[in-house]
């Protein structure tokens, strides 16, 4: 469990990035943190593994106060995948990259080997095991960063902008992958601008604006509220946009799922057809 209580954070430059944020994420939850550039999203999640410590307030991970613990200790519970994989990768080969943290955690070689095999297979990287991460494409490097974190099996996984540079198919893989992790009881927190991706996953959405939480609720509710979204500099997902344009036709407004949309529209079109007959 992740408990953030009234956290305020000021960078050394004097910028007040978080102005009193409270948030509880339960085990097994899937949360998307969204909001405009500079809203404090990344600053907030960097508190989850102790990379940043609150100026005021507290963050507790599984009842451990992050101010009283090191990043190395917290990392066992919280895996962090950065926005830019280049800020995270540094080893000569993909294998070494994944092995690095495992060695630091003191796992035996045979376990390390098994974990690497598991992680590269999971993320479709098995053909690159002996390749330098820097020879790979941006999307592939992102998957290496993810593999290296998953390999040590943290309970909480934080992914900062996981869909940037990923094509349609890779996003679908990522979505299924997140679902799979959820069935294993993992807690997943993503920071993202990708409304279409969030609309497809329908997780809990936390909207941020200017260092504060603006709204917190199910994706379906938040992503269909144009007033809230505008304040967070987010556009409605395309399905919700369609229904916004059709409000005069008496459709419900909180639709983000394409199948639900199809059924509602079909119903109405059939009705109209019968009226005409």
């Amino acid at each position: 469990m992740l408990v953030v209580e009234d956290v305020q954070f000021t960078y050394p430059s004097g910028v007040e990035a978080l102005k009193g944020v409270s948030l509880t994420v339960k085990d097994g939850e899937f949360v998307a943190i969204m909001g405009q550039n500079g809203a404090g999203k990344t600053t907030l999640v960097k508190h989850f593994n102790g990379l940043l410590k609150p100026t005021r307030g507290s963050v507790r991970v599984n009842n451990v106060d992050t101010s009283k613990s090191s990043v190395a200790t917290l990392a066992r519970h919280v895996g962090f995948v950065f926005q830019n994989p280049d800020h995270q990768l540094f080893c000569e080969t993909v294998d070494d990259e994944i092995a690095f943290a495992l060695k630091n955690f003191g796992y035996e070689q045979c376990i390390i080997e098994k974990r690497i095999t598991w992680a590269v297979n999971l993320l479709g990287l098995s053909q690159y095991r002996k390749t330098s991460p820097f020879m790979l494409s941006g999307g592939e490097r992102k998957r290496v960063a993810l593999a290296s974190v998953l390999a040590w099996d943290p309970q909480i996984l934080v992914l900062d902008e996981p869909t940037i540079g990923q094509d349609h198919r890779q996003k679908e893989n990522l979505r299924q992958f997140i679902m799979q992790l959820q069935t294993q009881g993992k807690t997943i927190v993503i920071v993202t601008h990708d409304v279409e991706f969030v609309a497809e996953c329908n997780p809990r959405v936390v909207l941020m604006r200017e260092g504060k939480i603006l709204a917190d609720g199910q994706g379906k509710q938040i992503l269909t509220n144009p007033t809230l979204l505008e304040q967070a500099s987010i556009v409605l997902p395309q399905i919700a946009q369609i229904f916004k344009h059709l409000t005069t036709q008496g459709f419900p407004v909180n639709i983000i799922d394409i199948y639900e949309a199809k059924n509602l529209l079909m119903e109405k079109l059939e009705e109209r057809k019968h009226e005409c007959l």
Partner: protein
Amino acid sequence: MPIIETKNLSYTYPSASRPAILDVSIKVEKGEFVLITGPSGCGKTTLCRTFNGLIPHFYQGELKGEIIVAGKDAKNHPTVEMAEHVGMVFQNPENQLFALSVEKDVAFGLENLGFSREEMRKRVNWALKLAGIYDLRERSPHEMSGGQQQRVAIAAVLAMQPEIIVLDEPTSFLDPLSAEKIFEVIYDLNQKLGITVVLVEHRLDLTAKYADHIIIMDEGKICFDGNTREVLSKQETRLIGVGIPKATLLYEMLKKEGARLSNKTPLCSRELADIIQEALK
């Protein structure tokens, strides 16, 4: 005459075992808004690098076939010369920005082309305002967020007012509303000034509506090339893993279930909403 034309263009990066683009023949007419899309690693970025001669002059490797941009053979003209015609915004803004202030970064291209101080100031301010970063002009690009850096890179290209603007996922770090505003600015320049736009994007939900021409690539080859509406209504495009706009997909699902809707495939929510309203009349 097309403003960009390639004939049987193939290119292999140094030390790569297979070509990144293979036998690519495309034509882009002056004033078009072209969208290039396709799965990661399909060769989109590589193709764009040939437009201003970065390939082969900077990347070297083996280039075969023809590439003519703004009437010049890009193989025989150095990138500095091609840059007068083609402005590029790269995927990762960090690779493109180097000056100590935003203003200087945006002015750099103009300085190199020998513009007067007055003209430079005018153009730089114009570009900074269009990109929404006028207030940040004295900041250092390296202290800025990814999204702000992308705005700087875009402003630097706009200031040059080149005939062709090539943008490779230019708004990936921006929040959706800011991304939409940037696309509107680019579309406006395309419509009003007739600047040819080549946009590389995965997110067709956001961009298909702007493009009159779409090119879909896979494994280094051109798979589809034509009018955006026609290409995106082809079922075969679904097999490549291109992110077809939700409005287009929903329209197809309705048609498949027997809904009587207009035959004009929609590319955005507004268009589909109009089609449905028409059908409900």
